[in-house]
């Protein structure tokens, strides 16, 4: 059926703001950054084209080590988030009475009404040496004296998992909602164990939800700045912090821009590998 002319115009009219938005706020600044990442100063202090900013990343162990660390920790966080979110989603969708479902989702959402900074500070108040948890542990005689629970990798991962839970639970819920209960019942009738049901029915059905949740969580964690910085403390140079340092502390915007693009490329690469490994296509996941 041919689309009438006027509706085509309406289509473009509605699309125009979006296109402007994309062009002005996303495409143009990125082009500027891209140009910046390929320029540098020669010995005379003049600006020239160079690949040096990218070369620095691969030749300087601090930089790629930081990236590697950030990527590995992001993957671990994504995995843990998934393991925690799966039962939660299952409980909300299949176990709890429908009337309570809304309330449960609300409870998941509530912490996200305050900013990430406040949430992280909340955790810091709980976990610090003179904090609430230590106070009670000492009071009940479980500890002789308070220990420092902040500023290590485990705490940092916990914080990251906490801040990204929601982004895993929601796609899982929407994927799980379409799962027909009779499939599970049929499997029970045919005598399969719980493990088999999870492995052969529920997980494959939720695959798109798992993948899209994982992608969102992975990208959010990789691009996080606050949580690693505040909860990770002295041992946790996150890659985003390195970008910040290049821009702010070293005044080296060219290097910072190059790092930004490397982060974009390398994280896309990791996601591509992840999709290949799980034999999925981005299009299927997005739909």
């Amino acid at each position, binding site marked *: 059926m041919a689309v009438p002319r006027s509706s085509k115009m309406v289509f473009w009219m509605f699309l125009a703001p979006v296109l402007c938005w994309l062009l002005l706020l996303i495409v143009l600044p990125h082009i500027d950054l891209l140009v910046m990442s390929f320029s540098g100063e020669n010995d005379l202090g003049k600006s020239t084209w160079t690949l040096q900013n990218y070369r620095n990343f691969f030749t300087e162990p*601090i930089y790629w080590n930081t990236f590697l660390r950030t990527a590995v920790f992001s993957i671990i966080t994504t995995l843990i988030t998934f393991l925690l979110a799966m039962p939660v989603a299952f409980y909300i969708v299949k176990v709890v009475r429908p009337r309570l479902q809304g309330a449960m989702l609300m409870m998941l959402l509530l912490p996200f009404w305050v900013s990430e900074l406040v949430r992280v500070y909340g955790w810091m108040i709980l976990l610090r040496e003179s904090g609430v948890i230590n106070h009670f542990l000492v009071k009940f005689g479980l500890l002789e004296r308070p220990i420092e629970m902040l*500023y290590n990798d485990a705490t940092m991962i916990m914080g990251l998992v906490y801040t990204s839970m929601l982004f895993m639970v929601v796609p899982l819920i929407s994927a799980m909602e379409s799962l027909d209960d009779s499939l599970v019942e049929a499997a029970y009738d045919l005598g399969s164990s719980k493990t088999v049901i999870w492995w052969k029915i529920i997980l494959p059905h939720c695959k798109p939800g798992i993948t899209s949740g994982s992608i969102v969580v992975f990208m959010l964690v990789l691009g996080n700045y606050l949580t690693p910085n505040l909860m990770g403390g*002295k041992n946790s140079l996150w890659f985003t912090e390195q970008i910040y340092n290049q821009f*702010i*502390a070293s005044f080296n915007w060219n290097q910072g821009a190059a790092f930004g693009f490397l982060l974009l490329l390398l994280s896309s690469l990791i996601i591509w590998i992840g999709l290949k490994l799980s034999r999925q296509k981005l299009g299927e996941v997005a739909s």
Partner: protein
Amino acid sequence: MRKIVLFTLLAVLSLSGFAQAETLSILTWKGYAPQALVDKFEKETGIKVEVTYSNNEEMIAKLRATRGAGFDLAQPSQDRISSVQEKYGIYQALDYSKIEAALFIPSMLKAVQTNTLVKGQSFAVPFCWGTSGLIVNSAKAAGADSWKVLLDEKYKGRISYRLKRPTLIAMGFALGYDPFALYSDEKAYQAMLDKISETLIAAKPLVKNYWANGDALLESMRSEEVYVAMAWDNGGWKLHENNSSIDFVAPKEGALGWIDTFAIPSKAKNLDAAYKWINFMLKPENAGYFTTMEKTATASQGANAFVDQQVRSNFERSFPPAAIDNIKWYPPVPAQLEGMEGKILDKVKAAQ
């Protein structure tokens, strides 16, 4: 009908009047524009003041991103102006005729003018000054009086400092270098930085955390999680009010002296208001109020009479005359050093 037209006209006029209400936006450090003074200024001049909190590095980055637009007044430290100005041109030369020189301590005004000289023009006037040194809990760490306590095994897990350039400078002094003398010798400076990074990485297990937020540091000193820290003098004095065993100590290698200034960004819109604010803040009664509140001394001549006695005693307690003479004032930083330092700081933070 006519009434309606008149009314609309009036409304439009009054609205545009609101839109034109003068504002002064200041890019400054936390505490440098106390609310009481902002209110007083608004009352006196009718100019609305918008304050944005920042630090040296972010101030430069912000102004660089807008090429000096968006703010009418900034307050960078005096040593971070000339090289930045040479490279990015984010400030405009000050018109010293608009500044009431009589309000300033002459030697300090002179020093800042000299230190911010670029191509024959100066870019800043002093506002306040203070030092970085040690905050020590003497009940837990008696006799700590040297930068070296930050590397001392005895205080394992009870030490905190920032991972910023002042720490590198302090460590330089602790290791027996004179970093300021090496500013002009890039190679020697790099050699010193390498030694410092080695030391800081080796000392990593001793540090509780690298603090990033002044209030958070004060909190961990107050709760006695940290015994010795490198920090600003006014922080130590604030803690001293509640816990007399905590105090600021000028290390024997010399406290690091900084002066924060007023500088006007190159594309500032409201110049008049900016100069008004400078003169307003340096008035003895206002500067005195600021010092009483923030425990930071100003460059205002005669503000002392308006400073609380207790605040003045802080200074006398922490700075016997010999310690004053020993203050190491930051000279202007050559631009390329900051890149070298940035890399060292990353290295220290990334080390496991």
